């Protein structure tokens, strides 16, 4: 069926100078959605988060038509609308039921389409039906049905949210992504995994010692982290599907920490003290020969790969204070990136390649999240305040940054849009730090 939306092939591209949708989104988006001629015309909307308009949608609360809604601790419609709002691409106005008042409200908010659906929870199975309808014509723009074991209902909501992003923007959504992170407990720190919205927390490490620096290895189900479980910190790999944990390789001396994964070449860059002070090395993720990349006095750590695997940004105090540097993957072409701040660390290269996020002190002792272009020319400060804001990590689409913040007291994981807007708190249990965002 050739709906107006899919026929128009909405597509988002990055970049400056591309034509943007006019600010009066109601009028022009209306044109985009419904007044375009039926032949396929590409409409291009810039996907930069900064100042991007979000699409207004209505939502009619999904009823539970069969079974007990209390069989799950959430409402699947609420999970869906949270996903849509979180993405920054939509602004959802919810109503309990669809009557003429609701419809008028939708139009007032500029919504041209609304969500409807229902779910059931019979026995240990769920079913979920979602549809997106045109307000004027009632035509079903998108519709999907899901079913499966009861504990998968939440994932089905996430899947529909991603389906909407895919059909309306031609891009992958992040509603099914996850975080690995560090959680402090008596006697040590363990690695945990959770959905990107903070649900479904599970343990990854279970060794009652100190575990740090977790990263995903390409997929959402494999992680690498550094652990004191066998003494001096070494890398361990965790397979979260089989629940198996193995030591990645045994380093003969020194401590291994701060890994970054290059999925193109299946290798890690990391910091090691095997040759004395902390230097950056590169090696295949499953072991094999390590190549040393840095040779200066002082501390070199926190490497982060560029998305194409050609370059590495890292932190070094070789100038006298911790700053960021970039080098090619073999350690050559080394140049300094940051100058005007007092302390720069934990860099993370955006999956889009266009910016590097990092933590920096500009005045005082507390760290705030900044981003900078790889040529060093454009610096943005994304967080402020007296708490400490550290360990930035990018969503796979480059539209969001998660980080640790002590702004509420105990360390917790927060997310902001890549321009610093719309801060959201993800974790609530206290003592949570060092998040790493998975791939799709």
């Amino acid at each position, binding site marked *: 069926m050739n709906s107006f939306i899919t026929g128009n092939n909405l597509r988002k591209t990055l970049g400056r100078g591309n034509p943007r949708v006019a600010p009066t989104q109601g009028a022009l988006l209306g044109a985009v959605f419904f007044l375009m001629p039926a032949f396929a015309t590409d409409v291009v909307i810039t996907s930069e988060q900064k100042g991007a308009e979000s699409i207004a949608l209505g939502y009619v609360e999904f009823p539970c038509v069969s079974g007990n809604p209390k069989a799950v601790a959430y409402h699947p419609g609420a999970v869906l609308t949270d996903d849509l709002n979180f993405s920054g691409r939509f602004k959802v106005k919810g109503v309990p039921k669809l009557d003429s008042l609701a419809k008028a409200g939708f139009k007032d908010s500029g919504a041209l389409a609304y969500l409807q659906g229902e779910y059931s929870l019979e026995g240990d199975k769920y079913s979920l039906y979602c549809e997106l309808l045109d307000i004027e014509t009632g035509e079903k723009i998108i519709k999907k049905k899901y079913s499966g074991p009861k504990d998968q209902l939440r994932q089905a909501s996430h899947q529909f949210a991603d389906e909407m992003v895919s059909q309306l923007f031609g891009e992958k959504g992040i509603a099914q992504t996850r975080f690995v992170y560090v959680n402090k407990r008596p006697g040590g720190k363990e690695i945990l995994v959770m959905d990107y919205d903070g649900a479904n927390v599970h343990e990854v490490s279970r060794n009652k010692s*100190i575990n*740090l620096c977790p990263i995903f290895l390409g997929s959402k189900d494999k992680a690498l982290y550094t652990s004191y479980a066998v003494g*001096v910190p070494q890398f361990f790999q965790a397979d979260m599907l089989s629940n198996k944990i193995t030591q990645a390789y045994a380093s003969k001396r020194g401590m291994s920490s*701060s890994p970054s994964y290059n999925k193109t070449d299946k290798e890690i860059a990391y*910091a090691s003290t095997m040759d004395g002070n902390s230097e950056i090395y590169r090696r295949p993720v499953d072991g094999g020969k390590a190549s040393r990349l840095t040779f200066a006095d002082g*501390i070199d750590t*926190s490497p982060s790969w560029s998305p194409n695997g050609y370059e590495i940004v890292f932190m070094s105090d070789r100038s006298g204070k911790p700053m960021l540097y970039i080098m090619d993957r073999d350690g050559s072409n080394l140049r300094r990136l940051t100058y005007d701040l007092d302390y720069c660390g*934990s860099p993370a290269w955006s999956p889009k390649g266009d910016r590097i996020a990092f933590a920096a002190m500009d005045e005082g002792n507390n760290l705030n999240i900044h981003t900078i272009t790889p040529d060093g020319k454009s610096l943005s400060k994304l967080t402020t305040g007296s708490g400490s804001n550290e*360990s930035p990590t990018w969503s796979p689409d480059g539209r969001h940054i998660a980080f640790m913040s002590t702004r509420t007291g105990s360390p917790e994981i927060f997310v902001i849009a890549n321009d610093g807007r719309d801060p959201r708190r993800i974790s609530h249990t206290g003592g949570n730090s*060092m998040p790493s965002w998975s791939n799709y």
Partner: protein
Amino acid sequence: MKIIHWVLSGILSTLLLSGCAKKPAPVVEPVPPKVEATPPPIKVEAPKVDEAALRRQRIQAKISEIFKTIYFTYDQSSLTDDGKATCEAIGQLMKEALDITVRLEGHADERGTNEYNLALGEHRAQSIQAYLVSYGVAVARLSVISYGEEKPAVEGQDEASWAKNRRVEFTTTF
């Protein structure tokens, strides 16, 4: 008659004399004081001096006194004068007692990033290791581990707390 007279008087006077002479005091044999019979001496071995135990005690006491935590200035891994003095005393003791081995545990305060602080703690422990090696202690007796900012001695967000966390601690085996 005169002779008889003479003999008689002789006898008489002897008798008289002997009769009047003081009787000597009866000789009393001194009674020896009543002494308990001394038990026969038990055969006891003279106690040997335990050199090894004495040495252990002495060195253990020195270890407790000399291996004091060393503190650092913010973002520095170089030794202060106090730190150097402690290292000298440690070096001396370790050259005297060759069976002491040490683990040097480096730490940092919470400011800055976790990864950098892991490396900073290690750098501090390594700088002490280097000092002791140059003093003459074999490097095999000195192992190094860093905990970065992960094991603070004092929880607190002020300089007084931070100063107590920028440290190297010693764990000795002897």
